[in-house]
């Protein structure tokens, strides 16, 4: 098992194209870390540098404090599982998993023991004599994972392993991956562009875009304290709503609505230099409450333009009563208040859920810890 450190790592292609810019992060021993971002953001370059498949242009990668920059992929003792399974189709599942052990010249009875052990954890015991082609996609993926894990790697690197998975199997596969991680306790780095995947599987998330780190933190931190507008919008489905507001004091903002100016309290403070300026306010669709008591100061009225039924929830598409008639989304759970198109509604923007972003899109509320 291993701790991974990336210290001021750069990847520069062809002398001037920056793939990864000055990246520093740590993946702790036994941690499950996601590297998340849109395509072209630098995720795969980072993963390839960790794996030793790509040269590090500047900076250091170390495993357990030992710099591995100059070590090749095989010397780093890494397990890599890619999106495509790359199994040997002529061999049985057993032989596929046993392959790395046989390559080391391990004795038969030891191979048997180890393959059976890993197969048990990954729920593959009944399938060991089958050929990969006879297996469903989820099973093939687990065979590929078993083959990667049997070498007892320092670090497991997973590159979009679930992107071609049938959406109906997602909950099942996530549960399995989570369980496998908790049973084996491997240090795991998981690359994905799917924020829902990262949120549900990983302990912490590193967000990369345009070759740069945006934020690293637990799901809770990333979701509730995004450091900028990009992270705020990228995380969550639907992403965060944004609207204009005016900073009234260090602890409050206001929105101009058709029922007058509404003052909203903040959970934290902003630098006094922002007072009087128009800036962007953000609030998550899942964190807006539809209000019963419309006389509260923090209540903002709106008009329901559309309702999108989603099964266990519905999404209200609401025209806010601010001067710009901003369109926002509110997620309500089934069994709550019943609305129809054209209804008015009153929304409670509670202090703890309000985010503010300055014109560089940086989050500016200083929250008490």
């Amino acid at each position, binding site marked *: 098992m291993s701790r991974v450190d990336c210290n001021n790592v750069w990847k520069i292609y062809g002398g001037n194209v920056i793939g990864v810019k000055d990246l520093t992060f740590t993946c702790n021993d036994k941690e499950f870390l996601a590297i998340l971002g849109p395509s072209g953001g630098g995720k795969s370059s980072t993963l390839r540098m960790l794996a030793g498949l790509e040269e590090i242009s500047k900076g250091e990668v170390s495993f357990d404090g030992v710099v591995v920059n100059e070590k090749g992929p095989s010397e780093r003792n890494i397990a890599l599982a890619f999106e495509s399974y790359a199994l040997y189709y002529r061999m049985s599942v057993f032989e596929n998993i046993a392959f790395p052990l046989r390559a080391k010249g391990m004795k038969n009875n030891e191979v048997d023991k180890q393959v059976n052990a890993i197969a048990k954890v990954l729920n593959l015991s009944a399938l060991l004599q089958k050929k990969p082609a006879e297996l469903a996609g989820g099973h093939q993926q687990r065979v590929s994972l078993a083959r990667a894990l049997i070498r007892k790697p320092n670090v497991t690197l997973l590159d979009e392993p679930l992107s071609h998975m049938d*959406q109906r199997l997602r909950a099942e596969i996530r549960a399995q991956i989570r369980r496998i991680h908790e049973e084996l306790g491997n240090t795991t780095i998981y690359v994905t562009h799917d924020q829902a995947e990262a949120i549900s599987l990983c302990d912490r998330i590193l967000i990369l875009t345009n070759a740069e780190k945006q934020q690293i933190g637990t799901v809770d931190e990333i979701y509730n304290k995004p450091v900028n507008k990009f992270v705020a919008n990228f995380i969550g489905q639907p992403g965060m709503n944004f609207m204009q507001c005016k900073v009234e004091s260090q602890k409050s903002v206001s929105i101009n609505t058709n029922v007058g100016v509404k003052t909203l309290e903040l959970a934290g403070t902003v630098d006094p230099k922002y007072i009087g300026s128009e800036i962007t306010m953000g609030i998550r669709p899942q964190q807006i409450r539809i209000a019963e008591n419309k006389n509260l100061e923090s209540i903002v009225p709106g008009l329901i333009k559309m309702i999108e039924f989603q099964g266990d929830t519905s999404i209200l598409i609401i025209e806010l009563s601010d001067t710009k008639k901003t369109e926002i989304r509110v997620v309500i759970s089934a069994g709550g208040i019943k609305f129809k198109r054209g209804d008015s509604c009153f929304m409670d923007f509670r202090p703890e859920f309000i985010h503010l972003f300055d014109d560089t899109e940086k989050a500016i509320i200083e929250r008490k810890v």
Partner: protein
Amino acid sequence: MVEVRLENVSKRYGRKLAIDDISFTCKEGEFFSILGPTGAGKSTILKMIAGIEPINSGKIYFNDRVVNNLPPHERNVSMAFESYNLYSHFNVYENIAFPLKAPKWKLNLSKEEEKAKVTEIADFLGIGQLLDRKPQNLSGGQKQRVSLARALVRKPQVYLLDEPIAHLDAKLKFTTQTLLREFAVNYGATIIYVTHDYREALALSDNMMVLRKGKIDQLGSPEEIYHTPKIDFVGMLVGEPPMNMVDGVLINNRDGKTIFKAGSLFEFELSKDAAIKAQKCVGNENNNLNVRMGIRCEYIKVSDKKISDNSFRLPVYAAVHEAESSVITFELENSFLHSRINRGKGYDTCHISEEVWLEIDQENICFFQKTIELSKA
């Protein structure tokens, strides 16, 4: 706009029955979705309505007129294909304007009128800045929106849209979906919409159908399809996670109680209403009253304490935490059972192998005859 009605329509490819005796009505101004997995025959139905695919039997009506023998151009439909089908030598503007210029529609628009229409729909779909580009210089998501704009730019009798937003990224899908719904409402458009994504079908449709292997499994409103699936397949096609399916047996006690039992741990007494529902779906094998129970993940309570006399204990297989909720998973004999717990609304801090108490909300329980085999991934 017209009402579109299919009456006992079938279609064969050689000896294979691709569409098997299908009947449904999409009313004028209605947003009607066809939901199904790959290969179910969804696109074939659209092509039959468009007149691109001939049918073997049955009738297709536009209002009261049978259109079986009308060639495509006389049916006046507008279609968007999943594969875009853009003209690569035309730029985006010319692609979108193409249907407006087609002589068969005799629109005879002036240059200004044409430009106004193209610009309006392009701006609406957020591609107004791309009008000078050639398709080969667009991303997949941009191409798809051009294809959609070309389908929506003209007012036909009916819009036929085949997976028109399937290739957009998650965020853009959400906003484009809303735009489509807005378009439908504003223009009173009759839209028949094909998708494999249950979320789109639920969010957009007035009515929908679930298609499997050329047959209709269920017709109804999105709420009906979600809450009262008639067939196990429908329950499992809709929802994230899909509806939980548990195969078990009914045990009728002497004191008139009915027990549902699946394995040694999963056991509870059915309410009167639930028992009646269950009895209707029983299949008799090996002298057991076999039945398949369906329950959505939000209707299973999880607690560290006994919830009621009707709760039972299972060991946790895994707990997956999301931003607003957690999914707790249990392993059963031939399926997994998922329970969704909203933040702070239940025991979501449980850990692997811990035994917890479960209770099924019987108001929302479903029973099915088996039409598909359950298996674990």
